Structure formats: C-alpha cells, structure tokens
C-alpha cells in the first residue's frame, strides 16, 4: 500500500480512481490510444481492433466465470448469436448498425439466459458440460438454419456509417472499437461495485451462504448469464462488421476456449485481468505469426508449422499460468506496482 493513502469512508474506498494520479494516467492512456491511428500501420490497427473486440468479450466472460463462478464453455456461441443477429438485422431488416448492435446484444442476452437455465439445477462440472453442449448445438444451428444464416456461405455485412462517414477501414473502425471498449470496461468496472456485482461475487465464493443472505441465486445467475452474453453479442456484432462477413467458422469451439484462456491468463474476476489477458492472448499468436514468417527465409518448412505451433504455445501458456500463476497477469502487474510503490526502501 502506498504511504499516506488513507481511506476515511466506504465511499472513498470503493472509488474507481483511488488518486488523482490514476485518473491522469488513465486519461493520458486513452489519449495515446486515440492518436494511435495517426502513427500505426494497417496491420497494427487490424490487430488493435481484434484486441479491442477480444477485450469486450473477455470482460463479459469474466463477469460470468470470474465473478459469478459459472464456467461457460460456450462463449463463442453467444458471440456468434450477436454476430448473426447484427448481420441479419442490417441486411434483412435494413436497420442501421447503431441500432442493430444493441438489439443484437439483447438477443444474445436472451439466448444466454436460456442457456443459463440449467444453472438452476447444476453447477461446476455439469454446468460446464451443459454450456459446451450449447456451443455445439448453436454451431449446428448456424450451419443448418439456412433460411436465416445462409449456412456455410455466410452473410456479407455492409460496414457501419455515421453522417456520411463510412467505417470500412481498419483505421476508421478502430474508433468504433475504442469507444465500445471504453464503454464496456467502464460498465464492467462499475458493475462490480453495485449490489449486483457483490451478489455475483458472493455466489462465486459460497452459493449456500449467498442464498442465506437473501440473494436469489437463480435470478442473479441468470442476470450474470444475460450480462455476459450481452457483452458477447456486442463483441460479435463488432467482429462481423469488422470482417464484413459472417460465417459459422468465425465462432468455433476453440474460440470459447480462447476466451476462457484470456481470463485465466489475465486473472479471474478482475477487469484489468480481462484487458491484459485479451491483449496477451491476441498478441501472442500474431507475434508467433510474425516470427514464423520471418523465419521462413531460412527454414522453408516452418510456414506450415504455424497453426500447430499456435496450439502448442496456447496450451503451454494455459498450463503454465494455471500451475505457476493462477491469479494471472493482473496479479503480476499488482506485484510490480507494489514493488515500485515502495522502491527502493521496501522494508
């Protein structure tokens, strides 16, 4: 703890910005993010968009899995529902992107609540398997409900536009992503200080005790599923508008696992963790991609090694974090901060 940092009231203790410094740092950081497109190339912005979308999805999953303790192996399916809903609302109904996206979020939330119904009866392992089943069932629906989803051919999605500006490049879309990331991180961070957020954490820590204290378990579990799926739906809508096409291959089971990996690597139950984890798990494969393509000149066979290498690195990361640092990158970050807060006289 920092010297001279005293809390005199609960209100003060719960503040998001614990000091003026933190606030300044954050605004500075957002400013840097806002001017980033002026300097970065198209590839960097492409990756930045993916990171941003991953952050939104990861914050959602962290609310469900990290804070409420309901493990979901079907997050990609909810992202898919959001993506398809956005695409269908834009192309079939002719709605502008800005209305389609929130409605898609609500549709995704509704589907999430349906999937969350088994959580009334089962938890832990069984819920995990139920959500996995939901993933495969929804996958099947994406492929086979041709009337709505056009099957494996997919739907082409026109880019969003606002007042004559068309957001069809990495650069312009980056601002949409940035705004939604800031909104969702702000919402997530605030949610955890409300009655709902505390109820979620209580359910995670001991469901029996939570029920005794008057938390309606089923209601709050469903709320958690709904919020998490809403985030997923927004992430899905952004994803398909960014790629300008939606096909079932965009939302495989592996993506669900990747989101779980993000929040585990980042830190369960921490919004900062979701951000760090999403950035980390998106950047590592890209880095690997760059490495393998630059090594191609010397080892021509390394190009086909990229996909399996990605799998191996991904698995090793998950296993190593679980075994050595179960609290994730957020804990490492906290430790570094603590170290420098009192540096060089830590005792």
């Amino acid at each position, binding site marked *: 703890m920092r010297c001279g940092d005293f809390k005199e009231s609960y209100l003060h203790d719960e503040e998001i910005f614990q000091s003026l410094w933190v606030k300044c740092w954050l605004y500075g950081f957002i400013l840097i993010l806002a001017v980033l497109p002026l300097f970065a190339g198209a590839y960097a912005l492409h990756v930045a968009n993916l990171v941003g979308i991953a952050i939104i999805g990861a914050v959602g999953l962290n609310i469900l899995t990290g804070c409420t303790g309901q493990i979901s192996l079907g997050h990609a399916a909810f992202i898919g529902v959001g993506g398809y809903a956005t695409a269908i609302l834009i192309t079939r109904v002719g709605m502008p992107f800005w209305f389609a996206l929130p409605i898609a979020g609500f549709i995704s939330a509704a589907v999430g609540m349906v999937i969350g119904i088994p959580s009334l*009866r*089962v938890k832990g392992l069984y819920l995990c*398997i139920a959500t*996995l089943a939901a993933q495969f069932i929804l996958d099947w629906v994406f*492929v086979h409900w041709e009337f709505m989803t056009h099957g494996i051919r997919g739907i082409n999605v026109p880019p969003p536009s606002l007042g004559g500006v068309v957001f069809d490049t990495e650069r312009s879309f980056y601002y949409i992503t940035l705004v939604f990331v800031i909104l969702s991180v702000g919402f997530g961070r605030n949610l955890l200080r409300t009655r709902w957020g505390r109820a979620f954490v209580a359910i995670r820590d001991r469901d029996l005790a939570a029920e005794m204290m008057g938390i309606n378990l089923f209601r709050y579990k469903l709320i958690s599923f709904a919020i998490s799926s809403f985030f997923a739906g927004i992430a899905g809508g952004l994803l398909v508008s960014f790629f300008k096409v939606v096909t079932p291959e965009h939302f495989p089971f592996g993506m669900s696992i990747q989101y779980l990996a993000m929040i585990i690597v980042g830190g369960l139950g921490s919004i900062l963790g979701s951000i760090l984890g999403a950035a980390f798990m998106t950047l590592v494969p890209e880095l690997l991609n760059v490495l393998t393509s630059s090594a191609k000149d010397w080892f021509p066979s390394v190009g086909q090694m990229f996909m399996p290498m990605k*799998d191996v690195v*991904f698995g090793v990361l*998950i296993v190593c974090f*679980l075994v050595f640092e179960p609290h994730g990158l957020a804990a490492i970050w906290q430790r570094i901060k603590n170290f420098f807060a009192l540096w060089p006289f830590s005792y």
Partner: protein
Amino acid sequence: MEIVPQILVSGLAAGGVYGLVALGFVLIYKATSILNLATGEFMTLGAFICLSIMTQTSAPFYVSLLVTLGFAALLGVIIERIILRPLIGEPIISVIMVTIGLAAILRGMTHIIWSPEYRSFPQIFPPEPLDLGFAIVPSGLLWGFIFAMICTIVFTGIFRYTRTGLAMRATASNQQAALSMGISVKGVFALSWSFAAITAAIGGIIVGNISGISIHVGHIGLKVLSVIIIGGLDSIIGAIVGGFVIGILENFAGVFLDPYLGGGTKEVVPFIVLVIIIMIRPYGMFGKAIIERV
C-alpha cells in the same frame, strides 16, 4: 421398416467404442474427480503411434498395439505427475482448463509430428462384413465392437476383482480413509491416468480402423461427454450402457432426422440429449445422486 434392425446394429457397434472411451473418462473421474477433456487427443495420439509403428517397422498388429499401450500408459503417468498433481485442491475451472490446455498441446504436437492429412489404417481385421440375416455389420464396426467389449470387460474385471481395483475404488469413495489404510493415493491417480490413456488409445485405434486417421479423430472425445452424462459421471456400467444409447440414438437421428433438418444431426443429437439429461437427471442413469439444495 426393414431398416430399423440395421440402424440398431450399427448403433450398438458404434456404441461399443463410445463406451470404451467413456470408460476412460469415468476411471479418471472416479479416482481424481477430474474430467479429462484431452481424451480425444489421447485417442488421436494412440492411433498415430500405432500406425507409425506398424508402417515404420512393419511389426505385426498385436506387437505395435502392445507398444502403443505401453506408450499411452507412460504418457498418462507423466501427465498426471507434472501437470495434474500441482493442481490438486484447486478450483474446478483450473482443473478443466488445464486438461483443455493439455489437449491443445497434444493436438499441436500430433499435428507437427504427423501432418494433418488423412491416412488409412493397414488392413488388420478380415474385411468380410458379417451378415446377421436381418442386418449387415461392416467388418470395421464388428471388430471394433468386439475389441471394445473385450477391453471393457478386462477393465471392469480389474476394477472389480483385483487388489489394484480395490485400491482405486477405495480412493474413489474416500481419499482420506484410503490414505490411512496404506493405499498410495498418488499411485492410484497415476494408475487411473494410465488406464484412461490406454482405453483412449485403443478407442483411437478402433476409430482409426473404421474411418481413417486424421487429427480430427479427437472430436469423438467431446461427443463421449454425452455418454458419461447419460450414464452418470462415476458409473462404469453407466458408461457402457450410455455408449450404446448414444450410438443407437445418433444412428436413428442420422437416418430419420437428417432429411428434415438438413444433415449433420448425428453430430448434434448427442449434445441435445445431454442438455435434456442434465436438466432432468444430472447424475445420470447410474451415477451417485448428490443432492444439494440451494
């Protein structure tokens, strides 16, 4: 409806393999309360190792099978020792995720060592299909079924009638008590993992024989989840019966529902059944009912 017996027989034959793979899940779950989501990758790995030994050294099938099983057992022990043991007592999400991470590692390694294209297994079993009069069983399915049944009986026998099996059952029912009776719980953990790896490898070889080997053999590993949920996570009998149920159901779905729903129902029906079972009877047909009201 002359097609019905044919579907029943195909379903039963496929169900035998599911039951065998499900046995691997159940063995690990009973002993260690871990759901091993890397089972599918164990299958792929086993099938590839067996194939390599057969093609590289031209050893006869049963020799390469034995060597493969040795490998599988070793792999199971190593994985238990270095990956799972540090996680004893950790929350359930860590344990599930670590097996998923393991699956990713194994999948990547298999992909790197053996390229992703399809291969077919050399002819091991006599190719003539068996004509039962009312139905015809393709040779791959028939021998797969026979093989799966033999393995299931052997493992059930070990579990029921040997000292090792007794130790495993004791650990499953109460670890503290088992420890105090002088049973090496760590040894039992390692043994369960190697048994599970062996059953998965045999399952992989059978599936490889029926439909060829690629890195996608592992998908069956996830389908088998519905088998163990139907049977009950901790019931060996449940795994076998559940295997048959799912095998028959998916074959019926494949024939009767595909024309209406546009194909692929075989892949999704097990999961729909799974959700229904979880909603009405989460502990399955034979599982131990742990009722906790909150």
